[in-house]
């Protein structure tokens, strides 16, 4: 980096809007794909943990251990299995969402007051209908709280996938930024990551308010 290289070169940003937009698009796609797949798997695991209580401990133990593995190491350790591919990136990102999502879904469903469940049963709901129409809606705020954290975490992690040839905004931070001593690219990448995390968080918060209008009325 030259001493006179400015921290932000606006002309570079304007000339490279196309590339920046493309990286942002990749980033968003990887986040959405990973969180969606992670949510579906976590939902299944949470239902399993609730119907067979003994599985909850092992599920949490395994997902917490996965969670402690640094992402760069996990990406690399998946290479022997899935190669240098998008699959490797998505698999690792999905694994990281499991701990938060499974835990919050189980805690959320456990937290549904028994009198609510009884009232629903008393009104003639069968188990399946009661789950979809009563328990799940009541549990939604806590489930969405988990989704928010998983999403913000994933936004940061996608950047690391640049080391295995993917990367989204991570490409701007590492490949065209740090490695070439080019601060503008670094700061554009970091700023967009933060904006993306905040926007995703607010969108999910909005979604939760839409799904559970009664929760707002109770002053949650």
């Amino acid at each position, binding site marked *: *980096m030259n001493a006179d290289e400015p921290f932000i070169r606006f002309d570079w940003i304007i000339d490279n809007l196309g590339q920046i937009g493309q990286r942002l698009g990749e980033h968003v796609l990887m986040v959405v794909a990973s969180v969606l797949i992670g949510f579906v798997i976590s939902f299944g695991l949470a239902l399993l943990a609730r119907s067979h209580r003994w599985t909850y401990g092992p599920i949490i133990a395994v997902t917490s251990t996965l969670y402690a593995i640094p992402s*760069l190491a996990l990406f690399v350790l998946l290479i*022997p299995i899935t190669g240098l591919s998008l699959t490797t990136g998505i698999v690792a990102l999905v694994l990281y969402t499991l701990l938060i999502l499974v835990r919050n879904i189980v805690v959320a469903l456990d937290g549904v007051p028994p009198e609510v469940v009884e009232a629903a049963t008393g009104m003639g709901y069968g188990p399946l209908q009661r789950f979809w129409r009563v328990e799940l809606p009541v549990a939604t705020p*806590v489930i969405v709280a988990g989704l*928010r954290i998983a999403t913000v975490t994933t936004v940061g992690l996608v950047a690391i996938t640049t080391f295995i040839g993917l990367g989204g905004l991570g490409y701007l931070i590492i490949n065209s930024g740090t490695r070439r001593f080019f601060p503008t690219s670094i700061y554009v990448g*970091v700023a967009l*990551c933060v904006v993306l995390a905040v926007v995703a968080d607010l969108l999910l918060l909005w979604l939760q308010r839409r799904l559970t209008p009664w929760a707002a009325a109770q002053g949650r």
Partner: protein
Amino acid sequence: MELFGQGIAWLADPANWTDPRNGIFLRLWEHVSLSAAALAAAIAIGLPIGVWIGHTGRGATAVIAIANIGRAVPSIGWLGIVFPLTLVAFGRGGLGFVPSVIALTALGIPPIVTNAYAGMREVDADLVEAGRGMGMREMDVVRQVEIPVALPVILAGIRVSAVQIVATATLAAIVGGGTLGDFIIQGIFVRALDRVVGAAILVAILAILTELAFSLLERRAISPGIRRGGQAAPIEPGGVALPRVAG
């Protein structure tokens, strides 16, 4: 799958450990010393802030908001933010240890602050009143009542911070900080995948050991009188810090 075998073979070769310029022992030492320095700095900065705003309730909204935005910055982002600044400030000295330790400290502070704050706020107000009623001075209330009761939550914040720092130290290699990440990042560059996989195994073990060591410390440090059981709390945004995967 044979890549795992190659990684383990790389780890099993003693020559790879003792090389004085690029050996595993050297990189491991860089990794551990960098992480320890950053964790110490993060505790020294974050703990007083968290304890103080938890005790007084003053400035809490602002500090917690900043800590939450801090959490939205990707781990790699901290290195990216700090690196150009240290280069300009220190010239060649702005490579390696200096930007790495600053970035890792910045990354480690938010969980310590938010947990210390949350832990202090949860302390039963009656306990604090009882302390004051016994004639304790404000500092004694903090030290002898609030901190011991809040200790489990405070230590959990430090554990989260430690695991994140150890994980992200892997990435310090891109700014010349060495660490075990150097084998991974350089190795991918030159396609020496045995080193890459071997070092990844070591990094994973180091991070899991850090998690276990701090969990053990938490258990030992908490007096049985205030050990809580009961139902797990949900994880809420802006609430008590959860380990964020980093690096």
